[in-house]
């Protein structure tokens, strides 16, 4: 469940990271659960924190949360201090459009995704326009793209 630094990612499967706001669409979480054999699903560190907190707030313990994530083989990205300078650099470059005060989480998520080259699913695509080499989809766009690929 945890992504170790040296763990090799199975690139034969589609690899995506999900933002916390994706949990607003539980139908999509269920879709991911059904497709878990085809998709590697990663949870960035801050997403683990936010969604875990959300679960606790609804009376669902951390252990049950982890079990729920395991149902779609969700992989918890492991926090890595080495990304901090990159996060700071990106946040500083984008400070006018995406002030650190409100967007530090987005930089943490984005840089974690960049480090392992996986696309991101989020309802706040505008917060990730600085990600040049990765794609950011909403859940619906991602599904739409999957459908188009299946039709080819």
């Amino acid at each position, binding site marked *: 469940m945890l992504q170790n630094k040296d763990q090799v990612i199975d690139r034969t499967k589609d690899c995506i990271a999900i933002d*916390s706001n994706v949990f*607003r669409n539980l139908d999509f979480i*269920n*879709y991911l659960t059904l497709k878990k054999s085809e998709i590697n699903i990663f949870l960035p560190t801050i997403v683990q924190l936010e969604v875990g907190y959300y679960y606790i707030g609804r*009376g669902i313990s951390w252990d049950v949360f982890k079990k729920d994530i395991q149902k779609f083989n969700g992989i918890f990205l492991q926090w890595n201090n080495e990304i901090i300078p990159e996060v700071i650099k990106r946040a500083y470059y984008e400070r006018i459009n995406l002030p650190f*005060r*409100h967007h530090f989480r987005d930089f943490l998520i984005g840089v974690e995704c960049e480090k392992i080259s996986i696309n991101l699913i989020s309802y706040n695509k505008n917060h990730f326009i600085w990600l040049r080499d990765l794609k950011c989809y909403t859940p*619906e766009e991602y599904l*739409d793209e999957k459908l188009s690929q299946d039709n080819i």
Partner: protein
Amino acid sequence: MNSRTTVAIDNELRKKLKKLSAALDITQGEVIKRALSVYEKEIFKNKELNNKEKTTNNEKTKLIVKEILKKATEIIWKQDPERKAIQEKLSEGPETIDDFILNDWESGLS
């Protein structure tokens, strides 16, 4: 107001232009004007049709996506009552995850 412009056309087109001008007893300029008007209408009509088709296809895809997502929940809830209970708890009350936490994120440095 008319103005002069120069365009290069091949012989065949020049002959067609002359023929139409003579047959309709109108100037060659008028022939071009009428031909362009017909062409313009045709182009915009096709564009409109294409846009309509695109919109219909987009709407269809949106509906399909919505349907797939809805179906996923039906299947999972049937297979996994524990997941159903968790998700029902998560959906309780008016707050979404965004209301609950994300909209309040600030650095804490004021």
